[in-house]
């Protein structure tokens, strides 16, 4: 199993390591500084003592010199006094030797001093004690040798003091630098550790963000690579489980949706044949009015009308089912707007005349062709006009107009009927939805006309909308794209037609 600590343990380990490093560096630094201080103090003390001792040595030698001369009133110097002074000197040498602390130079200086003193004693003091004068010049030379080496020792002691001060200074500086470097190193290590931690999270988090975006964009097959610290890996697994269940649900929904579409498609298809037969025979009977009594004729007429309505509803359902199944096909070609609009107006006019309504058809001059399936757009226009016709009162005014709006042609059907409320406008394109206002209770129809109109317009790449003020009529508009290869300026002498009222 791979070692993969959780985010919290990673942080904890990181902080612990950082803390330990800082502590170690600080302790070492402080210890070292303390040690340097102690050494410095030792050296200074020793060098002072040594200096003191070399002064003593010089005094002891002066005493020896004094002892080597006869005291006042005596012919010879006192041997005992000289011995005492020599012992004094030897004592001072022994003390000084303890203080040299193994320093070769100082030891050598001290040994030289001791040797010179011994030589002086032998060559100068002893002859004097024995009542003989040393050979000329010897006393001066020997005495000078001892004095010189004594001064040398004193100088060396003072040098030792300076050297230990310099040494302590250097050591302190070096230690401070070392501690600073150590702290910087520990912080750098921490930085690397934490950025490593952040990096270990960044890649899997990035993948999660990317995956969530793709999922939100509708790609339900999105899965993320699980990785990173335990928490993030868990999040990744949870994400994948969510995607799995989303995909499963979507697939199930699609399946049910397809089943529903297939069902509607099949049912509509199967209903069509019997309805065709009923409608056909009913029409046949109504065509033979003379051989039927009035009651029979009335029945035949009702059957014919009802079956026609049923047939219309089945066709609408089929259209919608095909549209849902993506099987509704259109054949868009560059289409002349004026002739299409006027053809629909002509076909619909009898319905308006029947209700004493006026239908005014206007087409803007020099409209370019639209990219449209003429039969389907005629169907849309007929549906909109049928609604205006059915839902407006007798004597109402209905206008059908086509105008250019930018790169599109707008078709509008407006009436001055009862109109629709805000809530109703939200549902006007819903299937099987029908306006509920009092006047319209008797209106037949499938409630599918506007839903089909919407499907068809959208299939053309256009958009349909409705707006209305309650009590002041309703306007339905849709736009179609202008044909790219169409004749931009088709001049039609009859492109603007205003039909009079039909009353």
């Amino acid at each position, binding site marked *: 199993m791979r070692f993969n600590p959780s985010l919290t343990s990673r942080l904890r380990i990181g902080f612990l390591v950082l803390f330990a490093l800082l502590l170690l560096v600080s302790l070492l630094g402080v210890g070292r500084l303390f040690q340097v201080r102690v050494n410095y103090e030792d050296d200074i003390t020793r060098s002072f003592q040594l200096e003191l001792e070399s002064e003593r040595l010089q005094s002891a030698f002066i005493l020896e010199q004094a002892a080597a001369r006869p005291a006042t009133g005596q012919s010879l110097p006192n041997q005992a006094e000289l011995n005492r002074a020599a012992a004094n000197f030897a004592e001072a040498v022994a003390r000084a030797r303890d203080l040299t602390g193994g320093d070769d130079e100082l030891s050598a200086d001290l040994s030289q001093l001791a040797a010179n003193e011994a030589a002086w004693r032998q060559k100068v003091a002893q002859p004097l004690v024995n009542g003989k004068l040393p050979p000329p010049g010897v006393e001066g030379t020997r005495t000078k040798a001892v004095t010189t080496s004594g001064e040398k020792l004193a100088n060396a002691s003072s040098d030792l003091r300076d050297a230990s001060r310099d040494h302590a200074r250097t050591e302190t500086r070096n230690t401070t630098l070392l501690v600073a470097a150590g702290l910087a190193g520990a912080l750098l290590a921490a930085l690397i550790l934490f950025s490593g931690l952040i990096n270990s999270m960044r890649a899997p988090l990035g993948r999660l963000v990317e995956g969530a975006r793709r999922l939100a964009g509708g790609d339900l097959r999105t899965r993320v690579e699980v990785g990173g610290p335990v928490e993030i890996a868990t999040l990744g697994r949870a994400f994948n489980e969510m995607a799995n269940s989303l995909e499963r649900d979507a697939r199930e929904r699609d399946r049910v949706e397809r089943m529903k579409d297939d069902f509607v498609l099949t049912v509509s298809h199967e209903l*069509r*044949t*019997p*309805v*065709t*037969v009923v*409608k*056909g*025979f009913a*029409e*046949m009977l*109504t*065509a*033979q009015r003379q051989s039927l009594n009035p009651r029979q004729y009335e029945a035949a007429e009702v059957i014919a009308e009802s079956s026609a309505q049923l*047939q219309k509803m089945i*066709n609408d359902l*089929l*259209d919608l089912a*095909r549209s849902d199944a993506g099987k509704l*096909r*259109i*054949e868009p070609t560059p289409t002349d707007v004026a002739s299409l609009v006027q053809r629909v107006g002509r076909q619909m006019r009898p319905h308006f005349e029947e209700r004493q309504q006026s239908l005014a058809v206007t087409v803007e001059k020099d409209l370019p062709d639209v990219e449209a*399936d003429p*039969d*389907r757009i005629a169907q849309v226009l007929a549906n909109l006009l049928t609604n205006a016709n059915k839902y407006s009162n007798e004597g109402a005014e209905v206008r059908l107009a086509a105008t250019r709006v930018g790169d599109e042609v707008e078709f509008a059907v407006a009436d001055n009927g009862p109109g629709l409320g805000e809530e109703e406008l939200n549902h006007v394109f819903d299937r099987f939805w029908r306006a509920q206002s009092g006047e319209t209770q008797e209106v037949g129809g499938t409630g599918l006309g506007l839903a089909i109109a919407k499907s068809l317009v959208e299939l053309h790449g256009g958009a349909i909308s409705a707006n209305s003020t309650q009590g002041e009529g309703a306007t339905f508009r849709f736009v179609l794209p202008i044909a790219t290869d169409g004749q931009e300026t088709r001049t039609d002498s009859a492109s603007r037609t205003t039909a009079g009222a039909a009353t």
Partner: protein
Amino acid sequence: MTRLLVADDSETVLLMLQRRLEIEGYEVVTARDGFEALERLGEAGAQDPDVILLDAMMPNMSGIEVLEQLRDSGSKIPVLMISAHLDAAEPDRMRSLGASDAIPKPFEWEDLIGKIEELAGNPAPAADGDAA
């Protein structure tokens, strides 16, 4: 009198078409599928119909297959295909297969009569005295 051969797999549809067409004054021969339609055409002593009405979708042998066989054998009898699809492209496809014309189901009676009259070569369509 204009003679018609009508093929449709639904018995009731066929009966309805036959009765109504007879009222319109046509002589009607019916067939329940493509095989029967070809049989009727090949019957000894039978006169060729003036127009053939074929349902595009039929079991055993479809109207499209009948149409292809007829055109392959060099027959020039006008054929009106009754297609089940509402697709805008369907009539064009039927024509490209050799049909003289096509009418999508469901159709208005006047439209059917108009097309038959056109194919039968009767100049003045007698579509004013019916229905309504």
